[in-house]
């Protein structure tokens, strides 16, 4: 029983260190005590440091932690719903669905990404939501047809390919400057959310995260399968819709603002389960949120190339952390309780 306390302490410590690390470490080096003084509102030796920390690094940090937490929760919800530990928003094509929604808006309705009107972000999120929910409903439909988990994953990958190919066709017909903008966005990054955009992004992701906390009871019942859950009084249809809506909102908002970020949704729930030693959602949901935030912050730090002014694309970094975790999990699946 003491296990979950340990997990919380480790994660909280890691979170504080990574959060500060993200503020301190960057292309411009700023001393730790200066960063702390800026955070305390006392300002810094140089005005530019103040600007960098408050207007660039802090929003980036908050974006990263919210996006990481949200993607991780999407992955966890999908893994429980489909009784498949290898499900995740990117592998099931849900991110690609959101991607397609964004592509339609971005390539064919003016340079919305440059604009700062609230309505523009809103339409981006709605388009991403429509795309992700469309793919989710397709996956649900196929999950009734194919019983095998592996087959369902392959169908998800195929749907992802289909969405990508539609995006390529759209790209082919779109104006060059918009295509460039779209390709840059597609590499994924946490820097795109400015101080002005942050409230929109934060309200969607925080809503999704709170929503997930309300689903803990039905998620636990679903560990036994839908029939058992129904016998325990869970209204299966509405539980399923809630889980999908929560996943859809999180994936859509994060994809719309940060681009399609791979691997975090798939890998983090495994880290959380191994850290916690249980798949009881009572602690697994909060621990997944914390782990997702930590890993996203770590990935964000790794995008900074030391001694250079440029950043690596986020999607170049996430597989370096995510892929080994998944391979480890697959190789050790016989020793991992939740696989059996």
């Amino acid at each position, binding site marked *: 029983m003491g296990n979950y306390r340990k997990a919380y302490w480790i994660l909280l410590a890691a979170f504080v260190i990574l959060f500060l690390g993200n503020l301190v470490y960057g292309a411009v080096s700023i001393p730790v005590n200066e960063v702390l003084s800026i955070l305390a509102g006392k300002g810094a030796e140089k005005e530019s440091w103040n600007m960098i920390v408050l207007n660039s690094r802090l929003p980036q940090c908050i974006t990263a932690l919210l996006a990481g937490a949200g993607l991780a929760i999407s992955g966890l919800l999908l893994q429980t719903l489909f009784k498949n530990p290898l499900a995740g928003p990117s592998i099931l094509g849900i991110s690609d669905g959101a991607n397609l929604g964004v592509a339609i808006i971005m390539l064919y309705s003016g340079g919305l990404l440059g604009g700062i009107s609230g309505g523009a972000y809103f339409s981006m999120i709605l388009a991403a939501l429509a795309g992700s929910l469309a793919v989710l409903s397709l996956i649900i439909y196929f999950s009734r047809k194919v019983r095998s988990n592996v087959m369902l994953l392959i169908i998800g990958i195929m749907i992802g390919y289909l969405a990508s190919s539609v995006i390529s066709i759209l790209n082919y017909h779109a104006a060059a400057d918009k295509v460039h903008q779209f390709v840059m966005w597609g590499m994924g990054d946490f820097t795109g959310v400015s101080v002005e955009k942050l409230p929109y992004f934060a309200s969607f992701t925080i809503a999704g995260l709170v929503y997930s906390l309300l689903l803990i009871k039905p998620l636990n*019942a679903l*560990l*036994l399968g839908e029939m058992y859950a129904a016998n325990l*009084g869970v209204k299966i249809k509405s539980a399923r819709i809630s889980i999908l809506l929560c996943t859809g909102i999180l994936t859509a908002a994060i994809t719309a603002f940060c681009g399609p970020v791979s691997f975090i949704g798939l890998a983090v729930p495994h880290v959380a389960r191994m850290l916690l030693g249980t798949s009881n959602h009572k602690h697994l949901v909060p621990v997944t949120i914390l782990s997702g935030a930590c890993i996203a912050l770590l990935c964000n730090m790794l995008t900074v190339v030391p001694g250079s002014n440029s950043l690596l694309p986020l999607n170049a970094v996430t597989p370096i952390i995510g892929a080994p975790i998944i391979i480890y999990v697959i190789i050790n699946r016989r020793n991992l309780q939740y*696989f059996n």
Partner: protein
Amino acid sequence: MEGKGIAVEAIGLAIGYNDTKRRKVVQSNVNLSLMGGEVTCLLGLNGAGKSTLIRTLCGFQPPLEGKVLLRGKPLSSYSQSAFAREVGVVLTEKTNAGGITVYDLVSLGRHPYTGFFGSLKENDHRIIEEALDAAGIWHKKENYVSELSDGERQKVMIAKVLAQQCPIIVLDEPTAFLDVTARIETMVLLRKLAKEQGKAIVLSTHDIDSAIQMADNLWLLSKGKAVRCGAPEDLIMDGTIGEFFSKENVVFDNATGKLSAAVSQIRPVGVRGDFNTAYWVGNALVRNGYTPSQPREGIMNITCISPSDIQVNLPGGETKKATSVAHLCKIISEFPVTA
């Protein structure tokens, strides 16, 4: 105690599927009652509609016709959460619960009683502990579900149903994947719960032997035949079970209560002597196509003195001595007896 009265009653029930495309009636005009304090076994060959009946009783699919009364009130009048407190199920569905502890799994049985976040109160913990104890799995409560044997997992699911505090327990083939000892243990546990806690228990099974041994009541389902109910002994002696399960090559022996391969012709062999030896010699004879019967003139007669001393009197008057049943079988095969 949950009371001895009628727990579930089916009146004029038709079960089956009602898809948009087609309507398939598996069984019609089913009349059944399930009593508190009794174990009822649902027997039937594959395709007879066992699972369909189980699913209908569990509320997973609606009846096509007729009605199911749950403690006097129609099933449709129960809300899903009220139903969850009446009928608890143990299914063959594959679960994904390997990564939680036995205690956590059994605590899921408290779902119909807990609040929005499913937090357990002191009373819930007491009920969970009692359920673990009654199901005989208390000593494993800290273990992960994935560490358990199939028999232990079945006990955990039964403990979950007990924590659910339902007067009616429905189990779909609970002994299907268990080895012999786990099968008997499960049946003994279910009997104990029926007798001590007054639960009304119904389970589907393919295991005719233990159903005859352990059930207070049998429900017999067969394609195209009316459902028959009664105590196993009554159904055996009036020939109903024989009628339900006999096929061209399989016969139900009313004397032993066992299904066996049909013998094409009767070749009687007299058996007498030590009861235990004679019983197993009879078993070997049946396997080899003979019919054990009263000793008489003109047939092969076997006198069992002890397991290592068996005398064979051949029809011609010759006597042979066997030192084991295997030896006996060898002797018999050298002197085939025709009818």
